[in-house]
């Protein structure tokens, strides 16, 4: 499959009065056509900043790296050219649909606006298409909804409208930043279902940013785990869940209580310490202060990003140690 988006060694830094905050610190990810890539991480891991940088919407400064989208380097494009890509070829949906919809325009108006600017639709054609799109995202009575205002809709409905707007111009990449976090589980199930269907139908690539491992398991083909501004592990979704290599991923998976296991766990596994505040991290592996396997080298030197199995990458000093052991054993025998 062809690569649609290639982010290479991206570094997005924030400069504030308290110093430099490396929010994204050397992130490389690729998304293939028609693929859903999940970025998992906790607050401050840099997952949202990575996505916003790809849209050139971050207030931070890109210090290094390149973002290649369909053969164009997004970081060097003119603002005008970028505006054409935004909304048309790359669309984004956010966690809180209410803040991304304009409260003083009707739903129909807002969808039609996107169609008029990007697709040069006439007014009547745009309105017709708006109704079609609302129907596509499963909104009942779309002819009536187009005339309503955002506050008249429920959270789930608003998120559907956001998806309809995002899909309006048939983008090749949809960036979804915690799209279901503000929604209830039964509504979340509906929205995830909808996104899956749309992806299948239109072969859209999706960049799914979330902290919910359940959402990842359900929707993604491949997963990147981020911690402290770096990708620490990346693999196919089955590998990540069945055979996690990085201690952080392992800890994260162990610390969520299971809904289906019938056996009783008395105590949950938990990763000690606190989620690091961006900008307070210094040298070495960022996870080292909380890692139960941390060695001396972990605190001082950044581990390399290593392919531990085909298509499975992990950034941990343990892999080097394991390699050495294998080597030693081979030498002995």
């Amino acid at each position, binding site marked *: 499959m062809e690569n649609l988006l290639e982010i290479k060694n991206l570094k997005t830094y924030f400069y504030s009065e308290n110093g430099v905050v490396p929010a994204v610190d050397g992130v490389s990810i690729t998304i293939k056509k028609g693929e859903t890539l999940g970025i998992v991480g906790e607050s401050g891991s840099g997952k949202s900043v990575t996505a916003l940088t790809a849209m050139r919407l971050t207030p931070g400064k890109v210090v290094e790296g390149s973002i290649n989208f369909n053969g164009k380097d997004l970081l060097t494009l003119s603002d005008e050219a970028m505006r054409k890509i935004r909304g048309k070829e790359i669309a984004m949906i956010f966690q809180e649909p209410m803040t991304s919809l304009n409260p003083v325009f009707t739903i129909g108006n807002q969808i039609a606006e996107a169609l008029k600017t990007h697709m040069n639709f006439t007014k009547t054609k745009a309105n017709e298409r708006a109704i079609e799109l609302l129907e596509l995202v499963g909104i*009942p009575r779309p002819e009536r909804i187009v005339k309503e205002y955002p506050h008249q809709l429920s959270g789930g409905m608003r998120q559907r409208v956001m998806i309809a707007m995002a899909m309006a111009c048939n983008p090749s990449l949809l960036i979804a930043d915690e799209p279901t976090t503000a929604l209830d589980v039964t509504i979340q199930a509906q929205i995830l279902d909808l996104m899956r269907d749309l992806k299948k139908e239109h072969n859209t690539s999706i960049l799914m940013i979330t902290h919910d491992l359940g959402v990842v398991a359900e929707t993604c083909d491949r997963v990147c785990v981020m911690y402290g501004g770096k990708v620490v592990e990346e693999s196919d979704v089955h590998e990540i869940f069945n055979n996690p290599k990085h201690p952080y991923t392992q800890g994260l998976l162990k610390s969520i209580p299971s809904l289906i296991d019938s056996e009783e766990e008395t105590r949950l596994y938990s990763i000690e310490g606190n989620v690091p505040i961006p900008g307070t991290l210094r040298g070495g592996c960022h996870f080292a202060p909380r890692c139960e396997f941390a060695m001396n080298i972990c605190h001082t030197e950044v581990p390399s990003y290593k392919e531990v199995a085909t298509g499975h990458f992990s950034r941990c000093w343990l892999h080097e140690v394991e390699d050495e052991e294998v080597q030693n054993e081979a030498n002995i025998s």
Partner: protein
Amino acid sequence: MKQTLVEIKNLKKYYSSKKSVLSRAVSHVKAVDGLNFSIFKGETLSLVGESGCGKSTTGRAILQLQPPTEGEVLFEGENLVGMNTGRMKKYRRNMQMVFQDPYASLDPRLTVGEIIAEPLKIHKIGSSKEKNQRVEELLDTVGLNSYHAKRYPHEFSGGQRQRIGIARALALNPKFIVADEPVSALDVSIQSQIVNLFQDLQERLDLTYLFISHDLSVVKHISDRVAVMYLGKIVELGDKKELFQNPMHPYTKALLSAVPLPNPDVKRERIMLKGDVPSPSNPPAGCSFHPRCSACMDICKTVKPEFTEMEGRFIACHLYQ
């Protein structure tokens, strides 16, 4: 026989608002509409449900933070509803609350020590030296250090702030704690720390919890019994293990099946609910779940199902009557 600590009888909380400035017509939002259940000593009872189902209001109505419209809340046999302020203040020592938002629940202008000592100050317990000692003790209990007492809330992370909130709730040695979504604002890796803390404290201090949450996997881990709420009513209440293994009410079934599992290899049959939760100001007639229910019968549209007991499980559904 288990000892009942809190008994809730026909608890109702309505919010009324005038439809318009001029008209006399009043509309009621039935946030909590006739709850009956008991909380046993030493157990964790969880209230689960989606936003707007009235689970948080229930917690606050039990603690009399929002006085109930109707019904009784018996704490060790004493009815708290309508109790005068002076007596209520005494009862407050027995029951405390842990809040959802670790950022909003601590006064930013006070130091952590002052925050934790506040309950002691309100109830005039101990000299200032004893208070300081108690604060140190509490900080230690929740896994923080005594030097944290001099700092301000903004210097702490979400998980640490939640620990501070728990320390404050523990200051008066309560018997009963209402925890309103105490882990949902926290990062995944921090959630399990706090869940473990809740469990450790329960064991050490013999606490009883009413655990309000929308996160079913956390609920399954922490509770002894679970009550599922929908539109101001409990639709199903039962032992945790049985309820999760064999949900009976169609809503419970749908809710459980909707949770995305962190396991890409498990494929489950998902019951997809149609539409949204109706507005609690205008709930559907009959069973309030009937417009979204796949097993809806004619009777469901007109007659409200009773909340009845079946082999230790309470359920409000016509299918089982």
